[in-house]
C-alpha cells in the first residue's frame, strides 16, 4: 500500500483559513437526529420514529431519478427497505426477551430542518416489563455525530434518553412513579387536554355565551344583577362537570365502552346543538340539563385520552382524580376570564349581536366541519 502523502492544496488551504479563522458554527445546519417516541402500556409499546429523509437517502440511495430531490413516490416505493433498515437497528427487550414490532404504513412529517419519514409501530413484549432495554444503532456507522433522541412515556410520566455512538444502549426503568408525582402529572395532562381540546372548550363557550342574558319574549335581554347570571354559569359548569366525570369514570373502569368514532362525532354534534340553541332556544331555563346530557358525551371523549396514557391498575383512582382536577382547573380558568368580561359588556349591542350571534355561528360551523370529518373520516381542509 502506498502511503498517502499529505499535500497542501491551495484551494483547501484557502477555504480552511476562512473557515477556521471565523470559528463559524460547524452546525449551521442541523446535525442529524432521529426522534423516537415510545408509549408503554402493560406488555404493549406504541412507537413513533421520525428519521430524516436525507439520511435515509444517504444509506439507501432513494433518489432514483438523480434529480437531487426526494419525492413521496420515491420514498413510498422503498418503504419496505426503509422499515427493515430502521427496525433492524432498534432493539427493544423486556427482561432479556425481544419485543416484536408490527409496523403501520409509512408517513412523512416536516420538522424545522427538513422532512422526515415517520414509522409507527406496535410492539408486543413477552412479559409485563418492569424495565426496558433499548439498543439503538441507526446511522452511527455513517455519521458518528448522529443522535437518537428518545422519549419514553409510561402511565403519564415521561423520560428522555439520548442515544449516541458512545452510548447506544439504555436501560429504562418503568417502575411506577411516586403517587404525588403521578397525581401532578395527571393534573397536568388534564389541563393540557382542556387547553388543547378545542372541541371541549368550544362547547363550553357556546354554552356560556348567553349566561349573562335572560330570554324574554323571544329576545336575549341582559340580566339586571350579577347573582342570577352567576347562578346560571355555576349550574351549567357544575352540570357539565358532574356529567363528564361520571362517564369518564365509567369508561375508565371499563363499565361502558363506546366506539371512539361515534363519541368524537357526537362531541362535534354537541357543539352544533349548543351553538344553535343560542339562536332559537329549544332549551331555555333548563340549559343546565343540556350541559349535563351533552357532558356525558364529553366524558367518553376524555376517557380515550386516559386510555392512551395507559392507566395503572393500582393507582387508577389517583390518576382519574388528578385528570379530573386538571380538566376542572382548566375549565374554571376559562370561565374566570370570560364570565366577568361578558358580564361587563352584556348590555351592549356588540355583545348580543357580534359576540353571541357571531361566536355561536362560528362554533356551529366548526362543529359541523368536525362532525363531517369525524363521522365520514374525511379531511375537508388539507
Amino acid at each position, binding site marked *: 500500500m502506498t502511503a498517502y502523502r499529505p499535500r497542501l492544496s491551495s484551494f483547501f488551504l*484557502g477555504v480552511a483559513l476562512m473557515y477556521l479563522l471565523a470559528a463559524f458554527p460547524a452546525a449551521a445546519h442541523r446535525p442529524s437526529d432521529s426522534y423516537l417516541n415510545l408509549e408503554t402500556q402493560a406488555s404493549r409499546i406504541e412507537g413513533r420514529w421520525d428519521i430524516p429523509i436525507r439520511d435515509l437517502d444517504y444509506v439507501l440511495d432513494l433518489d432514483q431519478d438523480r434529480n*437531487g430531490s426526494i419525492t413521496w413516490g420515491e420514498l413510498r416505493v422503498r418503504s419496505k427497505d426503509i422499515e427493515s433498515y430502521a427496525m433492524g437497528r432498534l432493539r427493544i427487550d423486556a427482561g432479556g426477551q425481544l419485543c416484536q414490532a408490527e409496523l403501520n404504513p409509512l408517513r*412523512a412529517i416536516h420538522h424545522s430542518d427538513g422532512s422526515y419519514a415517520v414509522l409507527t409501530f406496535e410492539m408486543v413484549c413477552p412479559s409485563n416489563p418492569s424495565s426496558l432495554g433499548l439498543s439503538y444503532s441507526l446511522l452511527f456507522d455513517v455519521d458518528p455525530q448522529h443522535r437518537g*433522541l428518545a422519549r419514553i412515556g409510561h402511565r403519564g410520566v415521561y423520560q428522555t434518553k439520548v442515544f449516541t455512538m458512545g452510548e447506544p444502549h439504555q436501560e429504562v426503568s418503568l417502575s411506577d412513579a411516586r403517587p404525588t408525582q403521578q397525581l401532578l402529572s395527571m393534573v397536568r395532562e388534564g389541563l393540557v387536554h382542556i387547553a388543547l381540546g378545542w372541541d371541549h372548550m368550544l362547547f363550553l363557550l357556546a354554552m356560556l355565551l348567553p349566561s349573562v342574558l335572560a330570554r324574554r319574549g323571544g329576545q336575549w335581554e341582559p340580566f339586571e344583577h350579577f347573582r342570577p347570571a352567576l347562578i346560571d354559569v355555576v349550574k351549567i359548569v357544575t352540570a357539565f362537570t358532574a356529567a363528564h366525570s361520571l362517564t369518564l369514570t365509567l369508561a375508565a373502569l371499563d363499565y361502558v365502552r363506546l366506539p371512539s368514532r361515534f363519541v368524537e362525532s357526537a362531541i362535534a354534534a354537541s357543539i352544533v346543538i349548543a351553538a344553535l340553541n343560542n339562536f332559537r332556544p329549544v332549551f331555555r331555563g333548563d340549559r343546565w340539563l343540556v350541559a349535563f346530557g351533552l357532558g356525558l358525551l364529553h366524558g367518553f371523549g376524555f376517557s380515550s385520552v386516559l386510555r392512551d396514557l395507559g392507566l395503572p391498575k393500582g393507582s387508577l383512582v389517583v390518576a382519574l382524580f388528578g385528570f379530573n382536577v386538571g380538566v376542572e382547573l382548566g375549565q374554571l380558568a376559562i370561565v374566570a376570564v370570560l364570565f366577568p368580561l361578558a358580564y361587563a359588556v352584556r348590555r351592549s349591542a356588540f355583545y348580543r349581536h357580534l359576540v353571541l350571534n357571531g361566536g355561536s355561528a362560528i362554533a356551529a360551523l366548526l362543529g359541523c366541519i368536525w362532525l363531517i370529518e369525524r363521522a365520514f373520516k374525511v379531511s375537508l381542509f388539507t
Partner: protein
Amino acid sequence: MNPIAPPLTYLFLTAMIRALRKPAVVAVALVCGLLLAVASQTKASVDRPFVPASDSLVLENLPSGVANASTRQLRRLREALDKDPTNLAFATRVARLNIEQSRMTGDPRYLGHAQAALSSWWKLNAPPAEVLFLRAVIRQSLHDFKGALADLKVVLRSEPQNAEALLTYSTILIVRGEYREAEQSCERLTPLVSELVSGACLATVESLTGRARNALSRLTTLYERANAEPPGERAWASSILGETASRIGDAAEGESYLKKALQLSPDDSYTLGTYADLLLDSGRPTEVVTLLRGQTQNDSLLLRLAIAELRMGRAEGTEHARLLRERFAANRRRGDSVHRREEARFELMIERNAQKALQLSQDNWDVQREPWDARLLLESALATRQLSVASPAIEWLDSSRLEDPILRNLVAQVRARQ
C-alpha cells in the same frame, strides 16, 4: 345503531334548519369558519405526520443537488472504502472531500461522514499523521478546541513543516484568544506558504492586539500585489481587511473590502455574516434583508436576517425567529453546545431574555474569545445590570488592547455604571 343517535340527529337537523333561515348568520359563519378552519389546518400540516396525496410531492431537496462530477466521485470513493475500510488513501480522501463539503455548505452532516470514513483509526492513540490532522479539523469544527490542539501538537512534532497543521493550529489559538502563541506559529508559517497567507495570519493577530492600523497597511500592500494568487486566498485576505477596517471604525473602507471578498467568493458565509453585522451596526437592515435573502439553512445567517427583518417590522422575521427557536431547542435536546454564541445573540436581540443571554454568553466565553464573544458578554451584562459579570471580557480587552470602538463604548458604559 346506538340508542342516543336518532334523537341527537333530530335535534341537530331541526336546529340547523332554523338557523339556516337567517342568511346573514349563515354568511358570517361561513366566512369566519372557513378562515379559522384553513388557518388551523395550515398550522396542523406543519407538525403532524401525513400521507402525501400525490407521489410527485417533493419532500426533501438534497444538498448535493443534481448528481455532478464531485458527488459522483465521492460516491465512487465511498463505495471503494466500504469494500476496503482500512485503506488509508481512500479514507483520507473521503474525509477531505466531506470536510470541504461541510465548509462550503456549513452542513455538519459532512463532518459526521468524514469522521465515519476515518473510523478505523479514530480511536487509536497514535493514528497516522494525516488522520490525526483530519481528526483535529473535525474536532475543532465541533468546538472541541482542546482535543484539536492536542492532536495538532502531535502532528507538528513529527512534521514541523506541515503548513496545513500549522495554519489550523494558529487559527484555533486565535479563536481561544491566545495571541502570543498564535503569532509565533503564524511566523513559523512564513517560509512554508505564500506571503499573502502568512501575512493574513499575522494581520489577524495584529488586528486583535492593538495593532490594527499596522495590520491594515501591511496586508493591503500584500493584497495589492497578489493578483496571481488563487481567488479563495484573495477573498480571505480581503475579508480580513474588511473586518480589520471596520474594527477601527472605518465602516466605508471595511464595506468596500467585504464587497470585494464577496465578488471573489459570493457564497462565503463568514464574509456574508461579517458584512451583515456591519450593515446592522450602521442602521441599514434593509440591505441585510437583500443580502441574506433565502439564507434560511445557515443558522448564523438566518439569525442576522431575522434581526434585520424584525427591526423593519417585517412579518417574515417572526417566522424566521420561530425557526431559530425550534432549531436551538432541538440542539439542546441532543446535548449540543456548539452554538452558544448564536443562541446568546438570539436570546439577547430577538427573545429579549437578557438573563438567559448572560448565562449563554458566559458559557461561550469559556470556549471562544473573539470580539463578538466579548460584545455579547458586555451587552448582556449591561442589559441585566449584572456589571461585575463582564469583568473577564474587560480584562481581555485591556490586555489585548483591541481598538474596536463598539466594544470600547460598551466597556465605558459598564465602567460608568459601576
